[in-house]
């Protein structure tokens, strides 16, 4: 399976995994919690900081990882195609 197929497969599997984490039955409480806007605040109580930080870091890391990972797959595919291009160009030249 070449890298393009792998990529599509990974995306699909990733999506299924995300979807499969599943809805949790706390809908009733949560529909009341709809927000209308962001309200700025100065300090936050210390007990709120720790649990959120790993999530925040994970979120940023994921974005960077996906962006760099995608760029890498493009670079790899481009390398293969350019190799093939050089090869075929050589064959065309040698036929002349």
């Amino acid at each position, binding site marked *: 399976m070449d890298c393009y197929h792998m990529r*599509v497969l990974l995306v699909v599997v990733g999506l299924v995994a995300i979807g499969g984490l599943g809805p*949790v039955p706390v809908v009733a409480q949560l529909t009341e919690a709809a927000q*209308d806007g962001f309200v700025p605040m100065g300090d936050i109580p210390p007990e709120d900081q720790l649990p959120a930080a790993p999530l925040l870091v994970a979120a940023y890391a994921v974005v960077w990882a996906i962006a760099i990972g995608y760029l890498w797959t493009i670079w790899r595919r481009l390398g293969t195609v350019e190799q093939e291009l050089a090869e075929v160009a050589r064959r065309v030249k040698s036929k002349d």
Partner: protein
Amino acid sequence: MNRRLFPLLTGLSLVIFVTAPILIVRAPYESTMGLVQKIFYFHFPSWMAMFFTIFILGISSVIYLFRRKPVADRLAVAAAELAVVFGLMGLITGPLWGIKAWGVWWQWDARLTMAVILELILVAYLLLRQYGGPGSDRLAAGLGVFAMANVPFLYISTEIWRTVHPRTSVVPTLPVDFGIPLWWSFTGFIVLCLALLTARGRLEEQRAAVDKLYLALEEE
């Protein structure tokens, strides 16, 4: 043009992304969600980037369908892949935010549903291009048009359904302190998007060149 454009765009987006955390850290905390709300600065722009690329997909699909310009087709494929990538970013950062802010990883509210459906449509586009055989470029263009046309309908449902998501109107009324890092990140995402588009477009260009050479080979 591609040779110079890509490094330029990548460099620019890198600069923006490296400086973004400074702005983000300095932004005030949100009163109910605290630290985890800062995921917003990457989460929201990645969705905007996804919409941007879907729009590009739709327009280039129309151009390809009616004008048959190969450039449009290459742009469409690049845009579709990018939309999947940005959608994936949004779909992963969203639950990471949600588990802290709402207490659940996932909610079938309209906005999230729309996100998943759009991602599905785009993956279907890629599957069609990969497995559709000859002529799938035209068919995919048809699908691309339908995908873009679907976006408003999916979006409208968020205005009607009750939702736990912050309402879209949050953004226009954002206090300036929140606004600056948001729009800075947003610019970064758009520049990144353009950079990736040129790179992916180049890949398609080279593939087309190989095909042409193969044809030339067979002719002789």
